[in-house]
């Protein structure tokens, strides 16, 4: 078996764990944590394909992963800012109680 396959299986496992966390937890911060785990699993896929590709000197997968890390950092900052704003307004971080868009 190619050495790439175990990395892809591990990435799929972490992606599934992150998806389960995002879908089953009540707290909005835990939903964000699940999304971060899913983004990291995608990054692991990109790096693994870059490592075992025929032309790693082109750096495509590596650059994709680095830009993905930067986008994920921006997403975390905005997402947590939104959670804090909603908590100030509605006094809850439970996603099942956030059912109104109008304050």
């Amino acid at each position, binding site marked *: 078996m190619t050495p790439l396959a175990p990395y892809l299986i591990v990435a799929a496992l972490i992606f599934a764990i992150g998806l389960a966390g995002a879908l089953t937890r009540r707290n909005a911060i835990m939903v964000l944590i699940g999304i971060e785990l899913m983004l990291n699993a995608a990054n692991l896929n990109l790096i693994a394909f870059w490592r075992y590709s025929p032309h790693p000197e082109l750096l495509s997968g590596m650059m994709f992963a680095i830009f993905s890390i930067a986008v994920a950092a921006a997403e975390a*900052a905005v997402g*947590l800012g939104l959670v804090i704003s909603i908590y100030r307004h509605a006094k809850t971080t439970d996603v099942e109680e956030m059912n109104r868009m109008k304050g």
Partner: protein
Amino acid sequence: MDFVFYLISAFAVGGALAAVLLKNLVHAALALTIAFFGLALLFLRLDAQFAGFAQILVYVGAVAILVVFAILLTKGSEVPKEGVFSKSWFAGLAISAGVFAVLAWAVLQAAPSLPNETAAPAVTVNDIGNALMSRYVLPLEIIAVLLTAALLGAVIVAMHEKAGPKQSAGAPGPSLLGTGERRNS
């Protein structure tokens, strides 16, 4: 594959599982840090030194701290009485199990035709810097604009909505007292 890969993978997957399953949110954030660290070790094992250290700096250093701050600012460290999982947890679990089954099936089906280059890539940080400044300079600039806009947006969104622009400075003016409307009451 060797023993080190399984050890690091168990580290990362165990951290991710603990982050999703733990009831106390602060413990979950610490388990998330462990998962990020395990993923950074996997990056280092894949000969991607720059991405591995960027992962440690950005995720272990910044995102985990940000998550802990958000938990403490929203009193999320108290375990709620009605439980931490939603009412439809079984559907979410089934969906994620199905996603994992499909992904694992696809990987195992495609395993014979996956790229299989065993020689370690001779890529230095110097090459990455040159590529960022030549071929990938437009995405780099766009990422810079995106990060600036996202940080400004995060500050504006998280700013106190009831406080006026002068009220937060602690000015001893009595005229502002009582004029701020209470929207919740």
